[in-house]
């Protein structure tokens, strides 16, 4: 309990620092948010142009597609907002020896890395995600209930940790290879598969993103439950299970990596 209290306190301190930093560099904040907004806008433009030429996409109409796409941005954006520092591990910190500082401090290294940074750029994704959901919700006729509301929140939280878990595990590879940013990138690319209904893919891809790199549970499955009420036990329950499994694997790899860490130079 004391431990958790201390962690919350540290988290608060770091977030405060990051907000101060943001105020110091207001222009960066604007540029970052616009950049991520633009990235999403071009994708939405793509969807819009395509749907102006076809009536539906394998049975999914444009509103449903937009809803799933928008939903996918929420856990992705939350993970991006809070745990973006993991990218730095694989790209720079380990190869430049900057990781050393975490090891000289009496704090769990992973926790320290996770809470140290707040990536405001992620607001670009979150703003877009929320707008897309808001625009599409009136047109997709969702039947809301208390259960659905709760499960939606549960799904978003655990979907976020699917991203975080995968990032932890792949970032930790850098402890052996010095750089692993692109391994994270490779896995991250797979999450783009999850922005669209998995039914458009062939069985292999569907299998991969459901069971091997299960990004489909960050967006399509929970979103399809919200849209159609279908099978909450699988669509949301599996999101929770997979999230816990991935976080556990990630933390195990991380702890092994810390022991193998070789620092830089000699």
């Amino acid at each position, binding site marked *: 309990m004391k431990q958790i209290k*201390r962690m919350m*306190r*540290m988290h608060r*301190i*770091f977030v405060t*620092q990051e907000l*101060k*930093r943001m105020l*110091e*560099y207001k222009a960066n904040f604007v540029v970052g948010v616009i950049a991520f907004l633009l990235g999403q806008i071009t994708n939405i433009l793509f969807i819009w142009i395509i749907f102006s030429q076809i009536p539906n996409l394998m049975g999914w109409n444009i509103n449903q597609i937009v809803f799933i796409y928008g939903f996918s941005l929420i856990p992705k954006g939350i993970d991006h907002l809070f745990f973006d520092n993991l990218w730095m591990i694989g790209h720079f910190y380990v190869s430049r*020896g*900057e990781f*050393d*500082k975490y*090891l*000289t*401090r*009496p*704090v*769990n290294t992973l926790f*320290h890395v996770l809470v140290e940074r707040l990536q405001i750029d992620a607001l670009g994704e979150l703003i877009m995600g929320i707008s897309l959901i808001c625009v599409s919700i009136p047109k997709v006729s969702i039947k809301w209930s208390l259960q659905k509301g709760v499960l939606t929140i549960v799904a978003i939280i655990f979907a976020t940790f699917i991203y975080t878990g995968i990032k932890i595990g792949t970032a930790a590879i850098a402890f052996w290879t010095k750089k692993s940013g692109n391994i994270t990138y490779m896995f991250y690319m797979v999450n783009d598969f999850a922005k669209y209904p998995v039914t458009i893919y062939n069985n292999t891809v569907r299998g991969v993103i459901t069971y091997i790199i299960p990004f489909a549970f960050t967006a399509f499955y929970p979103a399809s439950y919200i849209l159609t009420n279908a099978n909450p036990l699988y669509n949301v329950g599996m999101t929770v299970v997979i999230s816990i499994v991935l976080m556990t694997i990630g933390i195990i790899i991380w702890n092994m990596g810390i*022991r*193998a*860490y*070789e*620092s830089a*130079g*000699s």
Partner: protein
Amino acid sequence: MIEVNNLRKEFKKTIKEPGLKGSVKSLFHPKTEKIAAVKDISFDIADGEILGFIGPNGAGKSTVIKMLTGILTPTSGTCTINGKNPTHNRKNYVREIGVVFGQRTQLWWDLPLRETYGVLKEIYEVPDDKFKERMDFLNEVLELEDFITSPVRTLSLGQRMRADIAASLLHSPKVLFLDEPTIGLDVVVKHNIRNAIEYINKKENTTVILTTHDLADIEMLANRIVMIDKGSNVFDGTISELKSKYGQIRELNFDTNDSEAKERLVYAKHFKVNEEDVIVEQEGNMVKVRFDSSVIPVSDMLTYTLGKIKVNDISVKDADIEEIIARLYKHEVG
């Protein structure tokens, strides 16, 4: 208080073949070999001691320091501080130590300096009243006041170093590691930093482990030197021990009008020693003779020389620590 026993660290290294073919080959089939950066290092450090930890570039100094600070896990061997071991309980261990890497900062780059101390206070769980007291003390010793509200990126190198040292001392560690704390600083700032380190050591009995390439740091601060080379201990003792062990080298300088002095002075033959034991150089009027005074007494050298050539002026020079260490690094003695 600090015990280092048979520390060893091996690294895997990729061997790359030159040229396009080699690059493509190592893209798919990297060859690796194991290299022991630190072979077998042992030493003890007493409470309150200032230890100068030196060695040439690539000797394995930073690897040792990184093992002592809990950054690297040793391949074998142990290091303990007050019975605590970084491999078993890193978090507990690092509370005991403060670390400054001169080439790298642990300060929050974009924020005013004050904020860094606020964050470190949380990380090291320093209570409010203790924190205030500590900041007052560090302020006084390291004179942080002038720049504590400036963003770290705007600090000068000397200010940054003072700030970094303060950061490493915030939690009152028992052991302070200083890796190149005076690198790139001007004479005055170097002097101030050395004074501050000495003061803290005296006042709080903090054990200091200092690595540096500036031997003036060592001469001013260190009670004891540990020198390593190629991953092994080469020397362990005080500065005067170092001098008496390797410092018997003397240098005589003669001013003479004799242009053939070098040819006339046949020391090796006269004293029946090897040619390498006495080195004679002549440049115009100046003749330089370097020899080991434990083999040939200085008085005998002078008597012989004055009998052979006409001398206008003489000076005798003691080898300074800088020269001894340079010779050790070059493996000329030892």
